[in-house]
């Protein structure tokens, strides 16, 4: 009898925590939606979604999300272009090429990489990477999209490497044997057999890495120049969705149009990351099959 009771209690607790997470996410979404909708009562949705300027304190204020969206897009695409090939190559190296001892060292290094606080990376960006890029590329300022992309790529690397490496390692050994048995070289085996078999897992890792890049705030705020205008290139100062919320929330009067506009920006961000995680999840599920 007591055993049955303790079983019941444990089961209920687990069920409860699971439900709690779902409820919290749902409430969060409702909360964002409610405050965003307050904006659209006074500011048209179309002008928010397609407006080309973000001027929250001009008279009348303008809350066009396009410059911020493009800021996030530029930085993210830049980061993806950098971190996806590097991440996959590193994962391939760790999983298939590196000797055992080096493998262990590299894996723990990657974990350390994941634990660097983003503010430290931002700091490095301000004092070193930004000025270095300005000098090398002859820019007017080093605080631009590219600096952000580089640092964010760096931040996404551990996620991509860890998950991609897992995916590569879990490809059955027999595939390798079969390929070698047919006379394939190590590279041919890796490229044509192991990589395609691991592709679902690798894509999932990449998507999670991208989710991290889009959601990252501190580095974006510190090094991208904080200029909410439509960027002409990645070499110009820009501002991301996240940096806008973090930067302006302190000044926005609670309950004002500006305040609600920032929630609407949050909602946009929420929707984007939701879609990305959803895709990643779909690929992970396919990888497990």
């Amino acid at each position: 009898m007591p055993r049955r009771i303790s079983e019941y209690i444990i089961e209920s607790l687990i069920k409860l925590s699971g439900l709690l997470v779902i409820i919290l996410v749902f409430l969060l979404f409702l909360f964002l939606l409610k405050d965003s909708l307050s904006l659209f009562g006074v500011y048209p949705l179309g002008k928010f979604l397609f407006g080309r300027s973000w001027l929250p304190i001009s008279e009348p204020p303008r809350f066009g999300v396009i410059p911020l969206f493009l800021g996030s897009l530029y930085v993210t695409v830049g980061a993806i272009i950098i971190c996806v090939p590097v991440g996959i190559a590193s994962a391939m190296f760790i999983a298939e090429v590196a000797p055992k001892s080096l493998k262990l060292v590299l894996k723990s290094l990657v974990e350390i990489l994941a634990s660097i606080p983003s503010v430290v990376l931002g700091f490095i960006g301000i004092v070193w990477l930004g000025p270095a890029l300005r000098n090398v590329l002859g820019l007017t300022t080093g605080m631009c999209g590219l600096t952000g992309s580089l640092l964010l790529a760096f931040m996404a690397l551990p996620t991509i490497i860890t998950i991609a490496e897992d995916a590569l390692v879990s490809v059955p050994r027999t595939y390798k044997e079969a390929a070698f048995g047919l006379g394939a070289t190590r590279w041919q085996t890796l490229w044509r057999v192991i990589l395609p078999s691991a592709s679902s897992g690798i894509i999932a890792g990449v998507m999670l890495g991208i989710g991290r890049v889009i959601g990252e705030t501190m580095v974006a705020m510190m090094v991208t120049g904080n200029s909410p205008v439509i960027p002409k290139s990645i070499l110009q100062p820009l501002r991301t969705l996240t940096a806008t919320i973090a930067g302006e929330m302190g000044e926005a009067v609670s309950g004002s149009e500006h305040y609600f506009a920032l929630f609407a920006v949050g909602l946009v961000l929420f929707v984007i990351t939701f879609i990305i995680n959803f895709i990643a999840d779909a690929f992970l599920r396919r990888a497990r099959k």
Partner: protein
Amino acid sequence: MELVPKIETVGLNLYYGDFLALKGINMKIPGQNITAIVGPSGCGKSTLLRCFNRMNDLIEHTKVEGKIVIDGLNILEPDTDLISLRKKVGMVFQRPNVFDLSIYNNLKFGLRIHRMLDGKDEIIQSIRGGLEQVGLWQELKDKLGNNARTLMLEQQQRLCIARVLILKPDIILLDEPCSALDPIATLRIEELLQALKQEYTLVIVTHNMQQAARASDYTGFMYLGELVEFGQTNQVFTNPKQELTENYISGHFG
């Protein structure tokens, strides 16, 4: 009866680290025949098979001594071209190990790595030829784009054989190729092997004595890393020269 061996091993020793897994193997495997290697688990039969295409090179700390002569060339020489060796000496494994790719790409893989690709038509011709040889063309010709892992196990194993055949090998090594298959599929694979021996030299490792008896022309019996007996299958099974062989094939141990 004197025959020119296709594969000949001379004083073949193989070490895994300090462990001597193959002890002075001297063996002459004739061409255009099926040779079975039998023996209890751990006797070294798979290890021996894997010497013939140097697959043991993949395992760390292995050391090989002696000679393995295939068509007059010692393949243990350090300058042996492993890529062309493995093209010439194909291998089929215990569990069907088709790649997680389409049927078409499974077959194309070998053609690609050996640069045997000459236009789409020729690829299709080779693939068709390979699948016809293993009796899969009719079943699969409209499904070449399907993932090979969705096939039944027997079809997968046939596909693995086709994947080897398409590279035009001389010798095909089969490492317990039927151990994952049911008895009927096993029989059908054996029939396929009989058809293939006209053109190829087949060496099959098996723990299934009946399979060795029905499907092979020559049999080698191995025990604890040594080749105890080698001869025509008939003779080995009906009139073994060694007592150990007799005890094993009559089921006294193993």
